[in-house]
């Protein structure tokens, strides 16, 4: 019997696991996909918003500002990339100025630090490549960039290091509500459930509500993106937003934590073929970014992708224990979900503490938690002495597999063998980046496949790219 089962290992579920793993609890994470962070967490703008955007009286607004503040200490303790590079909302004309003033006032009420409106001269100095038509901007120094999947991977790794169980490729199809506990898929007993299933949050909630109608629906909102080669680095220095009042919703161009440039998203409600990109969508993104940065080198594109934001019909995050005791919904985590995630985890921990006080027993902190989560090793960024030492200890650190990102075999092996380790080609790519560079895995994917097969003791034809069923090669006799 588990005390709590977290369904969904996106950034919210993972950070909740990280928070709960510090207490005397038997925890389980169930993930339908082949890796953690495979839903909205792997495909978004990768930004930690400052928090002036969502209304000051909303949960989104409060948790965004709090989440942003938590990212600093969290990134240090879990060793993931996080850099407060600041953001600018660009504007021109009276309407934009009014909109930016509203954002400023909203942000001040929420306590966003350092917010200020800057003039054209300052703006041009900060971002020399932007359209000269922009006259002013809202500057938010606390906005940052991170690697969203790395946040989730690090949090899960910590949780597993501290006794949490993670089950991948485990979709939840049935939840029975029994006296004092739940029974998932007729085989997993748990006293409590935390529903962090993103776009599936309404259908998972429906499983426990039976025929009773539920009070929210999740709308799938898709955003499409361009990702540019590292050679485009420097085209912008901070996160640039268009002003939300001018021509629809805002779009961004920003550096990523690894030095690429990310551009997007558009915004479209979708039903099926959800995570595809489209000619129209990409064209829209392209038009918007060229208006922001006319010299944007879109020919340096290395990948396009789209992500789905789980938009709640209620408009705000839904983070609460439901009328089914010990079933907690963490639903409708649309933007700024990533930014708010550490605060979402904090909120859920408070709810869990409350439930334990009320109904079960006091939540006791563990006395023996360990934080052995190490930063990822990137040999080429180490000092020469450290490189020499690493290679002497383990010669696979001298063998470069990914030539674009200069990733060594040792780094890939490390990413496979950690807790919450990679099991797929894309899982390796998310953790240590072979295939994340300009050749997009043309040379290294076959080598990564080889290493995965060897290190996980599986035949080559069982190594998949991402989802279950995304096979790459078959041995001739099995065809």
């Amino acid at each position, binding site marked *: 019997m588990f005390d709590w089962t977290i369904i969904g290992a996106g950034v919210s579920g993972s950070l909740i696991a990280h928070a709960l793993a510090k207490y005397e609890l038997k925890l389980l994470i169930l993930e339908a996909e082949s890796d953690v962070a495979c839903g909205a967490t792997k495909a978004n703008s990768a930004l930690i918003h400052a928090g002036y955007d969502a209304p000051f009286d909303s949960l989104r607004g409060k948790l965004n500002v709090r989440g942003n503040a938590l990212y600093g200490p969290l990134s240090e303790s879990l060793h993931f990339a996080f850099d407060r590079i600041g953001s600018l909302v660009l504007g021109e004309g009276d309407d934009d100025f009014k909109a930016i003033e509203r954002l400023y006032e909203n942000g001040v009420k929420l306590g966003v630090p350092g917010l200020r409106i800057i003039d054209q001269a300052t703006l041009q100095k900060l971002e020399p490549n932007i359209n000269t038509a922009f006259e002013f901007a809202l500057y938010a120094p606390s906005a940052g960039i991170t690697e969203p999947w790395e946040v989730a991977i690090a949090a899960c790794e910590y949780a597993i290091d501290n006794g949490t169980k993670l089950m991948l490729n485990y979709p939840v199809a049935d939840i029975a509500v029994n006296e004092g506990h739940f029974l998932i898929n007729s085989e997993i007993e748990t006293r409590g459930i935390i529903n962090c299933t993103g776009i599936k949050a309404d259908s998972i909630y429906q499983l426990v509500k039976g025929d009773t109608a539920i009070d929210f629906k999740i709308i799938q909102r898709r955003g499409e993106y361009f990702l540019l080669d590292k050679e485009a680095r420097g085209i912008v220095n901070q996160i640039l937003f268009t002003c939300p009042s001018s021509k629809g919703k805002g779009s961004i161009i920003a550096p990523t934590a690894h030095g690429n440039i990310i551009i997007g998203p558009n915004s479209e409600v979708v039903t099926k*073929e959800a995570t595809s990109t489209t*000619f129209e*969508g990409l064209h829209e993104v392209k038009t918007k970014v060229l208006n922001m940065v006319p010299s944007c080198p879109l020919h340096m594109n*290395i990948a396009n992708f789209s992500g789905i934001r789980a938009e709640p019909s209620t408009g705000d995050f839904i983070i609460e224990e439901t009328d089914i005791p010990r079933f907690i919904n963490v639903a409708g985590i649309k933007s700024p979900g990533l930014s708010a995630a550490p605060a979402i985890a904090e909120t859920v921990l408070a709810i869990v503490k409350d439930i334990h006080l009320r109904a079960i027993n006091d939540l006791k902190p563990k006395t023996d938690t360990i934080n052995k989560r190490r930063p990822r090793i990137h040999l080429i960024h180490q000092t020469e002495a450290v490189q020499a030492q690493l290679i002497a200890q383990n010669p696979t650190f*001298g063998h470069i597999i990914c030539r674009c990102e200069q990733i060594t075999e040792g780094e890939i092996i490390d990413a496979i063998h950690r807790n919450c380790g990679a099991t797929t080609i894309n899982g390796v790519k998310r953790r240590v980046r072979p295939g994340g560079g300009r050749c*997009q895995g*043309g040379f290294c994917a076959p080598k990564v496949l080889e290493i995965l097969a060897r290190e996980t003791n599986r035949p080559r034809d069982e190594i998949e790219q991402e989802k279950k069923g995304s096979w790459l090669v*078959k041995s001739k006799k099995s065809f």
Partner: protein
Amino acid sequence: METIIYDVVVIGGGPAGMAAAQKAASDPSLRVLIIERDHYLGGILNQCIHPGFGLKIFNETLTGPEYAERFIQFVHEAKVDCLLDTMVLAINSNNALTAINSDEGRMTIKFGALILAMGCRERSRGSVIIPGTRPSGVFTAGTAQFYVNIKGDKIGERVFVLGSGDIGLIMARRMTLEGAKVLGVAEIMPHSSGLTRNVVQCLEDFDIPLYLSHTVVAIRGTKRLEGVTLAKVDSAYRPIVGTEREIDCDTLLLSVGLIPENELTRVAGIEMCDKTKGPIIDNRMQTQRSGIFACGNVAQVHDLVDYVTEESQIAGYNAALFAKGKTKSTVAGIVVTVTPDFSMVSPQRLSFIGCDGTQLDSANIMLRVSHPAKSGVVVISAEANRLVTKRYNHLTPGESIHLALPLERIPATCQAIQIRLEVSI
């Protein structure tokens, strides 16, 4: 950190690197080193198991591995040293480079002359922007060729190919011979970008349809590829609404162009050519950095390996002269330009003087046309003087043109050479 010293260092052990190293090492007083990132020499030739290599160099047709094997023998006979599984990280400013491998860790290698022969890589889905989902089963043609020919894997049963580059054409045939059904090859241009002989021998002989002025506008499937949408394009290469057709396939091969792999070159600050995407080179295969040479697909993408070998021998010859210090050869100054009828020219600079200080009598010029022409006259001129005129039939972008330019015809004061195409109607 260990420091190693060689007269000539070659980065890359493919056809270019091997030919250059062999030539440089033909002077037994010189120590020559090849640094190869893979664990064998030969480069991409190893996975090109089809015939058609060597007609110019060996006067017979060989497979890729056979062609590679001959040069592997040559470099061994010439006592060229090889560092395998070794990656060059940076070219430093003081005639040295930094490399890394499992046995030695980081090392510094000093050179008298350096030859860049890193080859090229394939353009990926991102560089052509194909909308749709991101399932498995979308391979660049060369990656697919590696799985099939080196690893002996089967990669799919129903295959579509986007792009009519040579590797795409070769792989259309290869997949057919492997028992897969190849449903067609789409080419966005109104003409193939591969060799004519490959269109005939790889597609026509196997009844594989070639859809010119077509492209893939969508990719379907969330796990493995389930299908692609093919559409006709207009003269501006935009898909024409209403011409879409669905093709059910589990494999899409991309043969949408090759890019010289010049990360090291760029970081070293060596001046690049916009058209070839390689370093600017002269008729001695020297870059704009004295003592650093470039040859093969790192300088410009070639259609035939025999041409790679020829120019790499020139690079090796001159690098050896430079390393021997016969002269500190200066950077070439005469600029070679082409009209838009040509997509590229190599070399982009000319020097009258060889790396040993002697007068050169002739320079090899390589050109590619931007569009097909039934016939045309290539005219090389210096200001008003026509230096060379040569007529060609059946010009196509997929096949390079090679001609010799007698240097003594160029006036001594000349600063620039122009090359244009006169198309006869």
